[in-house]
């Protein structure tokens, strides 16, 4: 059932050889699960080490002079003082303060390295290029694959190829040699676990994946488990838990606005969308707010489910939901009216005509285990 219009990552054949069930995702033919199955893949990642192909994501180099200043025009984070070898989470905003994408920005020394969502990469690149001053060029690293190795055993697995990876701390991002090839290795990921993301030349991707997978602690993990892992860890999925209609304050992503760029910061404002975002930040009273919900039953409460208060008044909608294999609870993210967002508030989800009680809960739903 191969759709010829779908793009393939350099690991496409590798997935099929390893028994993956492939599905279309963001224009790519991607593995949703392997023979282990979504639940076991999820649990394996939390217990040992899971290997993910995330090569569909967009990798870019911003090359030229004053890249940090240019990025600060577009992103509400501190790029100028981002140390070399460090990466930072950022939101790409439009003039209204709506979120166009979320991304990682690394100071790679002679350039900035960006990783953006697959579904957004064409629009992101066009948007960034349209706002770059003379002397800067955004280059897509189409000849690179991206692997994520996640879980408590990730460090042991990757250290067999280069012991230096064990020295990295959360959000370090440096060049290291793996299998004789220069790779960009960051200690980061999107599962809430310790782990790494590895940018590797496409020609070496299968060799690296095979080598990692040969470790007895390591299993291949598909998009299905990637979704439940990130949701348990309270991490947003772009296009679901945030989009161009939501701003960082509504999305409960205030932490992604660096101190230096806030109203009282040393380089206050000066980014696209600064005016509405800093206003919303000062007011801290968005019409709707992203919250975590835990269900009173095991029934998954999925994206699109309407939420009500005790008097049956509509108060919000679910944007992601599943049964969390590790927390063993029905968990969701939702946008609810301001006032219904406090932890402990009881709301009611309408599932197949019945109302299921859910409680607004703090996120993450499981403990994050980053190595800082």
């Amino acid at each position, binding site marked *: 059932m191969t759709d010829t219009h779908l793009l393939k990552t350099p690991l496409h054949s590798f997935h099929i050889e390893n028994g993956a069930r492939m599905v279309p995702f963001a224009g790519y033919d991607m593995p949703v699960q392997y023979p282990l199955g979504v639940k*076991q893949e999820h649990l394996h990642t939390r217990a040992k080490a899971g290997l993910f192909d995330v090569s569909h994501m967009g990798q870019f180099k911003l090359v030229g002079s004053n890249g940090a200043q240019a990025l600060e025009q577009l992103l509400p984070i501190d790029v100028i003082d981002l140390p070399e070898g460090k990466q930072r989470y950022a939101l790409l905003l439009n003039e209204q303060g709506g979120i166009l994408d979320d991304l990682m920005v690394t100071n790679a020394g002679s350039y900035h390295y960006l990783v953006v969502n697959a579904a957004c990469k064409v629009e992101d690149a066009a948007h960034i290029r349209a706002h770059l001053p003379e002397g800067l060029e955004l280059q897509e690293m189409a000849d690179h694959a991206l692997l994520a190795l996640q879980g408590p055993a990730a460090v042991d697995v990757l250290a067999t190829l280069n012991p230096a990876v064990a020295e990295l701390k959360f959000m370090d991002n440096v060049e290291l040699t793996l299998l004789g090839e220069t790779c960009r290795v960051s200690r980061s990921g999107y599962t809430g676990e310790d782990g790494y993301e590895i940018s590797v030349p496409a020609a070496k991707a299968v060799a690296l994946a095979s080598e990692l997978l040969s470790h007895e602690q390591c299993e291949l993990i598909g998009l299905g488990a990637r979704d439940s892992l990130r949701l348990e860890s309270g991490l947003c999925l772009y296009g679901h838990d945030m989009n161009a209609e939501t701003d960082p304050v509504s999305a409960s992503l205030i932490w992604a606005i660096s101190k230096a760029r806030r109203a009282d910061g040393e380089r206050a404002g000066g980014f696209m969308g600064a005016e509405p975002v800093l206003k919303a930040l000062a007011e801290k009273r968005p019409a709707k707010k992203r919250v975590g919900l835990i269900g009173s*039953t*095991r029934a998954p409460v*999925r994206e699109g489910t309407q939420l009500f208060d005790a008097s049956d008044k509509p108060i919000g909608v679910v944007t992601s939901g*599943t049964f969390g294999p590790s927390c063993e609870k029905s968990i969701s993210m939702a946008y609810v009216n301001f006032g219904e967002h406090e932890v402990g508030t009881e709301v009611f989800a309408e599932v197949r005509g019945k109302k299921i009680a859910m409680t607004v809960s703090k996120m993450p739903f499981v403990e994050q285990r980053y190595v800082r």
Partner: protein
Amino acid sequence: MSNIPADLKYADSHEWVREEANEVVVIGISDYAQEKLGDVVFVELPEVGEEFNAGDAVAVVESVKAASDIYTPVTGTITEVNASLEDSPEQVNEDAYEDGWLFKVKMSDPEEVNDLMDADSYADQCTEED
């Protein structure tokens, strides 16, 4: 190849039916169906005493991916449901034909069972769908 016991009857919507005494049948989903659904995380069952027509949606099986309606292949009254699935829905994956059964129906028209497929016909249907 999935497991399709020869002593059961099958509906084209992938439920299996086992005849017990007194015109009561046990209903579940086939091994083929559970494999297609993936890991089951939640099962919503009907109330004992509810009446349904053949073809009615009476239960919901939710996997990590999606919710799927389960239809009763026969007309009648629910006499028992597998309440252990509330805490252990994975039994639907692990033992689709025994521990993973869903509900029992007291048939009002026992002849309906004869309209269902035997194992061979159902095996053919599964092969075609793959």
